[in-house]
């Protein structure tokens, strides 16, 4: 049990920030439960917009390196996120990319699969409930009689935290699971990890989700692909072998195969396995080698049964993938 930091006169200074995120990472920190009380004993929160009232100006006033550990969640979607990432990098001894969005782009990085331009027309021009007769769209600067109002510019693509600043550690997951998070907190508090490391993955396993999955592999080839709502899977048997696309083989372990225990296939939120690089490509390989098809024509037919392969294989990892972002408009 962690009480205080050995050899430290003062408690750890901890910050948590959200960039382009949903708040689930912040909630995941609450999920450590009664251990929150221990965290209170050993750490002072010096910035956490979700739960405390420190402002950007407070952070800007801290000395460089003042924050011992900053847990940064969310992808980089706007110029504001870039600015805050740089600020927190300068103020933090250890900067952690916390969760799927900061580490691989996460769900919002699916936007990278669409061309960046020409989207205003969709939202401010053609949504069913829209009433916008003057075709107003938001501006980065708007002058009023009292002064100018500013908005950050939205970037063309969602970036990972490490695309913008140097990151010491990465905790994957959407969101990271409480026990994993706690093990990292204990490690940091005990002085067990060096302050700087090049995006070393912590708080996760080193194998694939299949290694944690309770379902049995029967060494059966995939006959045909099935959509999850259109067929009921047989209990106890590997979902992928039954034809339900599952990212388990290409996804890093650490979650405990939670989605699969709820009867749903893995969608890959813990990111690629160690050394695999591109998660979608790894899944293509895993699936390709398990097709029942005996010739190329049948294999093509089988693959065509998969609904939305790019958005499924790269559900959480577009920003970190070889696809990264479609640079040119489709048409």
């Amino acid at each position: 049990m962690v009480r205080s930091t050995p050899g430290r006169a003062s408690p750890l200074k901890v910050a948590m920030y959200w960039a382009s995120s949903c708040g689930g990472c912040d909630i995941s920190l609450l999920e450590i439960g009664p251990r929150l009380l221990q965290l209170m004993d050993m750490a002072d929160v010096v910035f956490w917009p979700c739960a405390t009232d420190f402002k950007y100006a407070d952070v800007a006033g801290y000395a460089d390196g003042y924050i011992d550990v900053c847990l940064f969640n969310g992808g980089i979607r706007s110029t504001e996120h870039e600015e805050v990432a740089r600020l927190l990098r300068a103020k933090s001894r250890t900067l952690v990319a916390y969760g799927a969005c900061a580490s691989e782009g996460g769900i919002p990085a699916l936007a990278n699969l669409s061309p960046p331009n020409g989207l205003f027309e969709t939202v401010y021009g053609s949504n069913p409930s829209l009433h916008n007769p003057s075709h107003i769209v938001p501006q980065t600067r708007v002058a009023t009689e009292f002064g100018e109002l500013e908005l950050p510019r939205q970037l063309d693509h969602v970036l990972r935290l490490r695309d913008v600043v140097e990151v010491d550690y990465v905790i994957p997951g959407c969101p990271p699971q409480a026990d994993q998070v706690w093990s990292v907190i204990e490690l940091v508090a005990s002085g067990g990890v060096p302050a700087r490391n090049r995006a070393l993955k912590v708080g996760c396993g080193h194998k694939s989700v299949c290694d944690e999955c309770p379902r049995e592999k029967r060494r059966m080839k995939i006959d045909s692909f099935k959509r999850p709502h259109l067929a009921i899977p047989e209990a106890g048997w590997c979902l992928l072998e039954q034809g339900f696309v599952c990212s388990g083989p290409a996804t890093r372990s650490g979650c405990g195969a939670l989605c699969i225990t709820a009867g749903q296939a893995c969608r890959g939120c813990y990111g690629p396995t160690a050394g695999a690089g591109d998660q979608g490509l790894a899944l293509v390989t895993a699936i390709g080698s398990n097709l029942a098809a005996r010739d190329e024509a049948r294999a093509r037919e089988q693959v065509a049964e998969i609904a939305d392969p790019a958005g499924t294989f790269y559900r959480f990892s577009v920003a970190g993938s070889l696809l990264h972002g479609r640079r040119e408009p489709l048409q």
Partner: protein
Amino acid sequence: MTTSHAAAAPGYRRVRIDPVTRLEGHGKIDIFLDEAGEVADCCFQVPELRGFERFCQGRPVEEMPRITARICGVCPEAHMMAAAKACDAVYRVTLPLTARLLRELQYSIFFVTDHATHFYALAAPDFILGPDASPADRNLLGIIRKLGVEVGSKVIQCRQWGHEAAAIFGGKPVIPVNAIPGGMSKPITGDERRRLEEIAAFQLEFAKFTLKLFHDVVLGNPAYLDLILSGPYYHETHSMGLVDERNRLNFYDGQVRVVDIQGFEVCKYAPRDYSKHIAEHVEPWTYLKFPFLTAIGWKGFVDGQASGVYRATPQSRLNAADSMATPLAQEAYEEYFERLTGDASGRRMVHHTLAIHWARVIEMVQAAERALELVRHPEIANPEKYRVVPTEPPGEGVGIVEAPRGTLTHHYVTDENGLVRKANLIVGTTNNHAAICLSIKKAAQGVIRRGVPLTEGMLNRIEMAFRAYDPCFGCATHGVFGRPPLQIRVHGAVPEV
């Protein structure tokens, strides 16, 4: 944070609150003071968009409950359920009884957990520690220090058991994955049902405890009661909420009812008709849109009977419903209306922004009572009837639930393979966007006064105006992004319409 190059216009001074805190998501407030030190204007901006409506195009519709749950990690169940209901409509499936019961049970337990999180972690520091307490203490940890570890442990237990329930239903404790078109991805076992009953029973006791705490600490303190009843935190708007066939408040299903500032019904609609009743206005100075009632139209940033601005908050839901659906919540409802309007029947509307906190605690009681009813239903753990496989071709569907922060609408149009062609989402907080702007401005005008030096506590009192809404700008900024064109000019922060 935008490194500001912009100055206030000559004769004005800018005070900026950036970022706004103790809420979900991003926002900032610019207050413009005139030479006399009075508030000339106050502008609340949402600086972010994530683009869900755009990048959901092309995704398989059955994945929408899993994808849109990531709009908000605080209320993922709300998006998951609205998405699943929209999917049910897309495939024209009718849920088997057990599936229907399981969905509402999961949702009710979630609702208690979510409201408790807002009350203790985000809202209560302003009341239990006080609006002028040091910002370093004004948070959940400060509350635990003040109220003691025993109460703190209960708060933590509520959150943790809520997570445990979410994991029983949906695998992942923070973001469950189990609602699918046609029902749920798994049934619950008898053992799981028994555990859920323990959790629901605890939640009901905790909700009653929280209601008592609210009475003792907030209503029992004349200074806080004055603050709640004061002018800067009062404005009249129309009210929206989901009701059952007897106009009782429902969180999971029913029709959307809107009442005017006096309580007369403006409209009542089924989910599929939402776009006949709600439309969204756009402003150039924020990424978030402003929904309004089409029956009245967008009249600008004004409140009152003649404005299309409405609110969709716990308070609005109590206004819009004729009664609560469970006995203890009904008792609390009558006391709330009696105390605030002098009429226990609820026929006179409440418009005190800070009293939204009280309404939220009353809703906690209803959600917990409902969870306990559902978990004891003889069909809840039926191992067969937890889902049905859709057989109709996919098309178009709308799903609505009451998210903790307001009425949540998901609308999908798919192609013949069930891939999403169009997605439109009007989320809880977005409903309240115009009202939040009005509340912040009114609070700023009331708090900041000529000749009184500006303090951090005063700025916090301005933030209290939006905190009452439990806003989630993570949810609200789900919309489409894009590169904004260059500058345009409007005269006045609030252009005339």
